[in-house]
Structures are given as C-alpha cells and as structure tokens.
C-alpha cells in the first residue's frame, strides 16, 4: 500500500461570480516533497493554495491532508468552525504580504498560536519559538516589533510563526514577491534549508531558478487548469507544451 499523501487534491473546481478560476484540478504531494506551482498572473495559483486550507471554499472536489478530508466532516456535513480550525492548524501558511500582527513582538507573533490554539505552556512555546527563530536567523530580534523589521526579516518571522504550529505541510504564496531584490535571497535561503530538512512544502513562486533547485515536482497552471506536472529538469529543459515554453521564455530567459 502506498504511503498516505501529505496533500491530496481531487477534481477541485472553484469559480468566483460565475467565472471558473480552477477547473478539475488534481494533485498529490507526498510527505517530504516540495511542489512548486507556476503560472502567469491570474491563473489561479493563490486560489489553489487558499483552497488547501479552506480560506476559499471549493465548489467541487475534495482535499485531504494526510488522509483526512478538510472542510467536510465524516458525516458529509460542512465542518464546524472548531473542526476546521483543527485541520488548519496542520497547515502552515506564509503570505506574500507577511501579515505579521503589529501589536505583538517577534517572539509573541511566533508563540501566539501555539499558546492559544494548541494550548502549550508559555515556557514550552517560548522554547519552541526560540529554536525556530534561531533557524530563520531572527533570534536576536525577538523583542522587537514588526514595524522595525525589513521585509525579508518580517517574512522570516512569518515562516517561523507558521512552523511553530508544527504543521504537516507548509504553504507559501509568493513569499518573496513583495521584497526588494536584495532581500529575496535571505528568504529563499530559509526555504531551501527547510526543504533539506525534509519539510513538505507547496510553493507558489515566480523565482524560476529557485523552483528548479528546490522542487521535486513542478505544476503549471493555465487559466485554472493544470497543463503540466513534471520533474523540474523535465519541466525546464523539455516542456511538453508551447504554453509553458512561451512562459519560460518570458519569465526566465536565462534558464
């Protein structure tokens, strides 16, 4: 019997006000795997990612996290808020705009959910948070408040915050798109370290070279449909469709 997929998406469809944004999307992410989702603007990448943790509700299809269905309980009814919160806590999400909570210090941003959602004691949460802040290189800034940090620093804290819930899967939605070019590297470096440590990750990005280097699987979305799903070397060197070829020429002339 094959190992249970960390994320399994089957026949997912979603429309906004009558326009289909995702059409019959299916995708499996194995534990330890890094999957990059590429595609041009408006192709539905963020929507796909946001469906995985039910920030958007799909119209059709089902999504399982480590075998358990999200959004719909066993009885077939929509999940209660509490059940949903429990499922979401298994997924860590990092946003393009960081979304740190400005009234809390760096350390408290990281410990907030472990203490108040998972019910950890303050000491346990602090310990866990400090280890993670160490990992992302932000331990010395623990007492500072978000407004004093650079974009790259904020994003590293946001990554530590998501990791603090010890999620089964990390979701990244263009984590470096809002950063000045010279700050992109420090964030990508952290994500790369995580991939080496065996974290399961789904990553939406416009950084082609990075996607090529860290991914085990690359998925290309076009108008809400997955038109290619392959190994990065295959994807970048030997795209099967003209659509991807054109995309690669535009996005990454160097590759």
């Amino acid at each position, binding site marked *: 019997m094959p190992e249970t997929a960390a994320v399994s998406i089957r026949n997912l469809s979603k429309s906004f006000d009558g326009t289909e944004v995702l059409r019959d999307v299916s995708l499996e992410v194995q534990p330890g795997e890094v999957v990059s989702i590429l595609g041009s603007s408006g192709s539905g990448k963020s929507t796909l990612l946001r469906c995985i943790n039910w920030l958007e509700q799909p119209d059709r299809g089902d999504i399982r996290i480590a075998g358990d269905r999200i959004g719909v309980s066993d009885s077939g009814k929509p999940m209660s808020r509490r059940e949903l919160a429990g499922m979401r806590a298994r997924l860590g999400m990092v946003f393009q705009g960081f979304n740190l909570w400005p009234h809390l210090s760096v350390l408290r941003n990281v410990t907030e959910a472990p203490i*108040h*959602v998972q019910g950890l004691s303050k000491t346990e949460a602090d310990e866990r948070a400090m280890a993670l802040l160490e990992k992302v290189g932000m331990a010395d800034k623990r007492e500072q408040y978000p407004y004093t940090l650079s974009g790259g620093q904020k994003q590293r804290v946001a990554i530590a915050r998501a990791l603090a819930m010890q999620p089964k899967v990390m979701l990244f939605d263009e984590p470096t798109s809002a950063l000045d070019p010279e700050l992109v590297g420090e964030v990508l470096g952290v994500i790369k370290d995580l991939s080496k440590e065996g974290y399961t990750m789904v990553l939406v990005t416009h950084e082609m070279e990075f996607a090529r280097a860290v991914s085990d699987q690359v998925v290309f979305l076009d108008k809400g449909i997955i038109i290619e799903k392959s190994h990065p070397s295959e994807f970048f060197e030997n795209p099967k469709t003209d659509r991807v070829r054109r995309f690669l020429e535009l996005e990454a002339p160097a590759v």
Partner: protein
Amino acid sequence: MSNWDILWSSYDVFLSGFYNTLKLFGLSAVLAFLMGSAMVFLLEGSRPRLKVPLRIFIDGMRMLPFLILAYLLYYGLPSAGIRMSAWTAGIIALVIYHGAYFAEILRGCRATFAQGQVEAAIAQGFSQPQMFMRIILPQLILKTRGLLGNQLIILLKDTAFLVIITVRELTAAASSLSSTYFIPMEAFIVVIGFYWLISIGLELFIKMIGRFGAKRGFENA
C-alpha cells in the same frame, strides 16, 4: 466661619458624591466598552446577520441626547410595566448609549484593517472569538485610543445628567449643599475641580496607552 469652612465640615457629602460618580462612571465605562466591542464582534465575517439592526441601533443612539434615553428608561418604561431604580436606569442608559458610540469608533477603525492579518490568524487555527480578542481588539484599542479617551470624558460628563432623574452623584451633592447653606459658588468650584481631575487622569491614562502603542509603531489615530 467662612464659606469654605462650612464646605469642609460637610466633606463627607462631596466624598460620597464623588464616590458615586466614580462608581457610575467606572461601571458603565467598562460595560459600555464591552458592549461596543461585542457589537463589533457581531459585525465580523463576510455577511454578518445582525448588520442592519446594529447599524440602525448605533445610528439611532448617535442621533439622541443622552438625557432623553435616561428619561425613556426611568419615566417612560414604567408605563410599559418595566420599573427600575434611578441608579439602575442611569447605568443602563449610560451603557447602551455609550456602547453605541464605542461600537461606532471601533467599527470605523475595523473597516480600515487589511484582511491579511485576519487570514493569517484563521490559517493558524484561531477561532473567531479568539482572533477577535487577541488580534483585532488590541489593535483597535491602540489605534483609536484618542477617540476612546474623548468618549470616556463625554461619558463622565453624561453621568451628571443623572441628577435630573434623581441619582445622588457629584453634581447632586453640590446642588444640595448649595441649597442647604447658600454657598453655590464654593460648592460648584469644588465639584468642577473633581470633574477636571478625573478628566486629567483619563488623559494621562490615554497617554500611557499611547506610549504602549508608539513602541509598536502605532501612531496616534
């Protein structure tokens, strides 16, 4: 004996008035703030069910003088079979009236929030009430502290209206002393001094929150 000596000899009247005003103010400030926050919480979510009734309630209160509401509760409701003491009617009126104003202040600020912070909390598994209490409300307080402070001072001043429905508060104390001894000037100077003191205390308190906010990069709203 000078007028001031007469006043001094009845300092207990002032003290009890002062105490009553503080009690009225403190109790209703806390309850009104809770009520305002609760209303803003009920407005959370994409399609809040209570949006229309709350809007009507808040706008309605903002178009009424405080005293007419106190009249309604104290003189009006008994004809509908609901009777309460002047003190109870006063507190309820203060809470309902200023609750609506607090709600409006907080709601206005809530509308300016970026959705991202809230999504980050939902994505981490916070429940709606937890998220509101821990993520939204603290920021609302830091951002609206100036307006909240003004509203608290208005609430303090509105407690004086309750003398008209016979509540024994600070202004009632001055009024009764001045009519007993015919020394209105001195009695009222003392009482106005009391109000001034509480207002200054409130302003200091808001400044304190301001320092707390400045440390977190919240400029005064």
